[in-house]
């Protein structure tokens, strides 16, 4: 482990990778600040650039930097404009925006930055502890266990879907899995569902799909609802300092939410949104009565809690990605897709086979968090100027970058037509409140799921692998339980009412 850590340190501190993490954080902050553009859209747009780098460590460091920057940028727009860029920063606006309105925008941004830094850093320490441990356990997994584990991951996405959304989340996952079967699979080497079209021979492009279901609908929503992109009431950022008493008051909140947020982030399907809302709810519930009434009106604890939790959860979401190769969220699914495109297979062997990637990413998390604190905070008043870009310029450029990203990835103009078609379908589905992240997770995991399923079937000459491998059976039972869990919760609440 120590050797790997040293290799990771060497890789992360190379001039090129330092440049990547600094660049990623700044780009992420800039774009993440734009209301309506979440980390998934930004990472999707940045993937062609990352893949062109050709170096998996540099690519992942760049994308991780963009991810943190986008979360930080999203918090900034939540605080200054009450316009959260992503669901994960909605809870930030509960107390951040009232603080900004009360003339404490600078203080709110400082608390957000410190909380994000602490959450991200403590999360990275926990990641260093838990990822190697999980990797060593996962080394005993065979294709049957992997198949079952992926089913658990996909089922968990449904379990964490909102009320009335479980079936939709499952359907979207299945649709993603179905889309993954289009084209020539590596295992069978025969075209499936291509309808005789040459352009579908290699299947749907992951970059095109990511752009189509995240970036393009966001841009269309910005056109449909211009109020979403209005930036007229930007608050002035003056005093960035916080007092000793304030620092003392938020310290225990940061400690608690770093740990809680991290473990929520590890769960597939949970992620930053649940972590931030749960963090906010927990801190409000345990706060003394005189502080409780301040929640929602500009409480510094109410701001620190979701900010810490969502950053710790972001770090936590890297645990299943790096150790099992299973993405727990849409964002980590995009990162997994990028890694596969760079011929890197995340999983338990990543730590031993490619320590320069595994450890460099973890170390770059520390660097990224530090950069966000020392570089972005003083620059925030200037970075916030991006909020003044008129939507008449902003939207065409978002669309253009989406198109370019897809074109660069495939160098094929037909891909752009597929992008537009899929984008329109995704927008319509989002209007009907269908979640899109499960579709991408299903699509990314589809190939691996089928490969592991087929391998297990061949090794055990049929479906017997479920009976003969107890761990597989336990995991599949867990998956079945996760699918029925929301219905059990619903039945229980009905009974109670």
């Amino acid at each position: 482990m120590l050797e790997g850590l040293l290799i990771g340190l060497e890789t992360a501190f190379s001039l090129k990778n330092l440049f990547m993490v600094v660049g990623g954080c700044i780009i992420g902050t800039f774009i993440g600040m734009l209301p309506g553009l979440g980390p998934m859209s930004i990472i999707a747009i940045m993937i062609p650039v990352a893949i062109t780098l050709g170096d998996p460590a540099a690519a992942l460091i760049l994308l991780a930097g963009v991810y943190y920057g986008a979360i930080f940028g999203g918090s900034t727009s939540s605080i200054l404009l009450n316009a959260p860029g992503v669901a994960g920063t909605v809870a930030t606006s509960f107390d951040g925006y009232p603080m900004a309105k009360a003339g404490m925008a600078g203080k709110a941004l400082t608390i957000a930055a410190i909380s994000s830094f602490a959450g991200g850093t403590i999360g990275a320490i926990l990641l260093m502890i838990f990822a190697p441990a999980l990797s060593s356990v996962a080394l005993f997994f065979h294709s049957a266990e992997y198949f079952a584990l992926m089913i658990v991951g996909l089922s968990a996405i449904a379990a964490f879907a909102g009320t009335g959304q479980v079936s939709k989340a499952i359907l979207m996952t299945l649709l993603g899995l179905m889309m993954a079967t289009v084209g020539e699979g590596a295992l069978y080497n025969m075209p499936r569902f291509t309808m005789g079209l040459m352009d579908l021979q290699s299947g749907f492009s992951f970059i095109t799909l990511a752009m189509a279901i995240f970036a393009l609908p966001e841009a269309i929503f910005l056109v449909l609802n211009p109020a979403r992109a209005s930036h007229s009431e930007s608050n002035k950022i003056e005093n960035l300092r916080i007092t000793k008493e304030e620092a003392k008051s938020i310290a225990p909140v940061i400690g608690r939410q770093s740990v809680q947020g991290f473990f929520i982030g590890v769960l597939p399907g949970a992620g930053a949104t649940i972590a931030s809302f749960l963090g906010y709810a927990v801190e409000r519930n345990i706060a003394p009565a005189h502080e409780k009434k301040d929640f929602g009106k500009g409480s510094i604890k109410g701001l620190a809690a979701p900010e810490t939790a969502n950053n710790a959860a972001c770090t936590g979401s890297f645990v299943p990605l790096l150790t099992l190769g299973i993405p727990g969220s849409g964002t980590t699914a995009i990162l997994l897709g990028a890694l596969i495109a760079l011929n890197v297979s995340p999983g338990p062997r990543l730590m031993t086979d490619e320590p320069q990637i595994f450890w460099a990413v973890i170390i770059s998390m520390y660097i990224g968090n530090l950069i966000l604190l020392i570089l972005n905070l003083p620059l925030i008043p200037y970075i916030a100027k991006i909020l003044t870009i008129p939507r008449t310029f902003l939207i065409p450029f978002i669309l253009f970058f989406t198109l370019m990203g897809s074109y660069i990835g495939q160098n094929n103009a037909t891909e752009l037509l597929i992008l537009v078609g899929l984008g329109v379908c995704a927008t319509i589905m989002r209007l009907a409140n269908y979640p899109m992240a499960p579709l991408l997770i299903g699509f990314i995991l589809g190939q691996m799921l089928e490969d592991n399923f087929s391998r297990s079937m061949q090794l055990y000459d049929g479906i017997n692998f479920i009976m003969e491998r107890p761990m597989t059976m336990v995991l599949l039972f867990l998956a079945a339980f996760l699918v029925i869990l929301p219905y059990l919760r619903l039945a229980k609440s009905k009974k109670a009412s």
Partner: protein
Amino acid sequence: MSFDRWIALVILSISLIYSYAAFFTMDHLLPPFMQRNPVWPSTFPKILGILSIIVSSSIILGLEKNKHKNNGTEIDYRRIFDYNLGPAIFLVIMMALYAITLRPLGFFISTITFLAVSGYVLGERKIIILFFVAASASFIIWYLVEQVLGIYLRPLPTIF
């Protein structure tokens, strides 16, 4: 029938076609030696097809109740005509046209036209600034993609 159930109906249709292809058309192409395998290329799609038929049918039948009157999205599809639908459709058409014209017209003409016309449709009336921004952004992006990333982008129409 609510909008999400119409969508589920469309997905059900797709699932039925997908399942038909998996059950009745794929296995004819299978070489005889592969037919002895316990798993065929159609095995996984067959499972997916059946599952998606079941799940989409459950949404159409409304087996999972959604208590929320508001459909949960920030844009209410029931008032879709109250939003800027015209410009949104126009931009989608512009993107399709961009895809079609990128190769024959070259990167510069198609990109400058796309950016300038899209900005104009969205309400920008400072034509000179719009054109200047579109032209300079096109050149910078072309330079970055072609010279830095090394990906060929035909700058001018095919005739040149």
